[in-house]
């Protein structure tokens, strides 16, 4: 019986179909280990070999990777939530209630989206903390740190715009408190220094542009929805590609320079 299965397996492995999908066999050789990385579109983000300290979770804390994982979780749960949610003031809250009470796995998807979002803010901060403490922003990685700072602010904006979408008391008042700051923008806000002198009023300043009105209302909901679901993830995604690519181009994860004498 087993003999037949083995025969079938080796036959199958010789077919054009199999060979077109899998480029190498799975014997544990150095060559296959390398091919496992370079022949895989997802894994080839990695180099084939890295220094041993970089696999040590005590060194990296894994926070960058966890942040990326949470971003993927958020993308998947977010898309599922979009099937049930309409970003209009008359529907939004009812859709939330529907999602929490009547949709199969609705609460799980929403809970996971919210907790992963909070967790991502924390892991992004810890990632930055680790990168700072190991001096990994030093040459040649200076610009990748700058991209990281932009990604940090994008993470906060993503979380902040998502905060409004449930359209409950918690949402609109948290966003009201947050966006009230924009009133006071110097030059561009109607309550900021030199704002009124430059003709800023409540209905033409930077806060008005952000909210699409003079207070947090239905146009704000739509604006934040578009920013949250399209604009910010798109910009974040592009910058993430640059961020990851530059890690490779700048010589992989940071480590002591063992070629020079001082380390």
């Amino acid at each position, binding site marked *: 019986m087993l003999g037949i299965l083995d025969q079938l397996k080796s036959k199958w492995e010789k077919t054009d179909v199999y060979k077109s999908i899998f480029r190498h066999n799975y014997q544990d050789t150095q060559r296959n280990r390398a091919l496992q990385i370079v022949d895989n579109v997802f894994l080839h983000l*990695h180099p084939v*070999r*890295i*220094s*041993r*300290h970089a*696999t040590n979770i*005590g*060194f990296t*804390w894994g926070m960058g*990777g*966890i942040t990326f*994982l*949470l971003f993927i*979780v958020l993308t998947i749960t977010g898309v599922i939530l979009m099937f049930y949610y309409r970003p209009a003031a008359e529907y939004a809250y009812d859709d*939330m209630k529907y999602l*929490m009470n009547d949709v199969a796995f609705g609460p*799980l998807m*929403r*809970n*996971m989206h919210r*907790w*992963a979002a*909070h*967790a991502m803010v*924390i892991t992004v*901060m*810890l990632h930055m*903390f*680790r990168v*700072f*403490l*190991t*001096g990994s922003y*030093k*040459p040649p990685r*200076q610009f990748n*740190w700058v991209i990281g*700072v932009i990604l940090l*602010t994008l993470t*906060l904006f993503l979380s*902040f715009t998502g*905060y409004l979408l449930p*359209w*409950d*008391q*918690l949402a609109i008042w*948290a966003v009201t408190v*947050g966006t*009230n*700051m*924009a009133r*006071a923008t*110097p030059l561009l806000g109607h309550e900021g*220094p*030199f704002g009124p002198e430059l003709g800023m009023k409540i209905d033409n300043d930077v806060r008005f542009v952000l909210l699409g009105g003079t207070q947090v209302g239905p146009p704000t909901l739509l604006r934040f929805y578009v920013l949250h679901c399209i604009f910010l993830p798109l910009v974040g995604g592009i910058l993430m590609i640059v961020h990851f690519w530059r890690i490779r181009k700048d010589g992989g994860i940071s*480590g*002591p320079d*063992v070629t020079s004498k001082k*380390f």
Partner: protein
Amino acid sequence: MEHLLKIISKPDNLPIILMLVLTLFYAWLAWKKAAKNDRQDISEEAKQADKVQVWPYLVKVEFLGALVVMVILTFWSFLLDAPLEEPANPALTPNPSKAPWYFLGLQEILVYFDPWIAGVLIPTFIIIGLAAIPYIDINPKGNGYYTFKERKFAILTFCFGFLLLWVALIVLGTFFRGPGWNLFWPWEYWDTHRVVALTNIDFTELFGIPTRLVDDSLNPVAMIFGSVVIVAWYLIAVVYYVWKKNTDVMQKLGLVRYSITAFLFLTMMAVPIKIILRLTLNVKYILVTPFFNI
């Protein structure tokens, strides 16, 4: 005590406790690693500089890490529901109204500064300051391994900003601020009707110089005095430069990098100073002008 449990067990406050615990844990871990590296000639990281294959040595760690995170996240999502309060009502302001938790440090600073500083200027300086770090810190040591000895100033400054001015203020804003944004102990009942006397005075008034004259117009003497105090604060940078001009570090740093570093550093340090001035001497403004107050 009952109240403490109530605010700690609020689902949206759990991340703050998580942040606090994780930040302290990792600060301790990094400190331990730095201390160990500083004791020996070769860093632990340099001892592990030999190459290994990513498959399986790194992929294994990544896979297990992802698994652990997903298990925790799934349990968290099963056990705790995301909050959903009453429908949005622009006519009903909750007291206290709080921003999302990660902005509570900034909302806390709003007590001590006008919104254009706390809500716009300080966040902008935080972002610019963070982005500037790689270009103003030209110390080549400590690249790729934990150390404290080799970059004391950089690490102390960053930890001061991150742990005290960011993390600690978020905790303060969440657990110590109740209705009317008044200070409450975490175990204290949030009394909506608590009356707090407004006894704030301006910095110049500590020295007997009134901010406004009898006819309610601004006192030019107070304005000049306030401006002098602020200019004097930033003059510390000039004095320090003249003092250290000929040192090796200052020569390498150069005037431009030094100016940016000194400005960002003094601005950051001014924040806790204003907080202390408010909490001890009830100081409201250092400088009052017709256009803005600091």
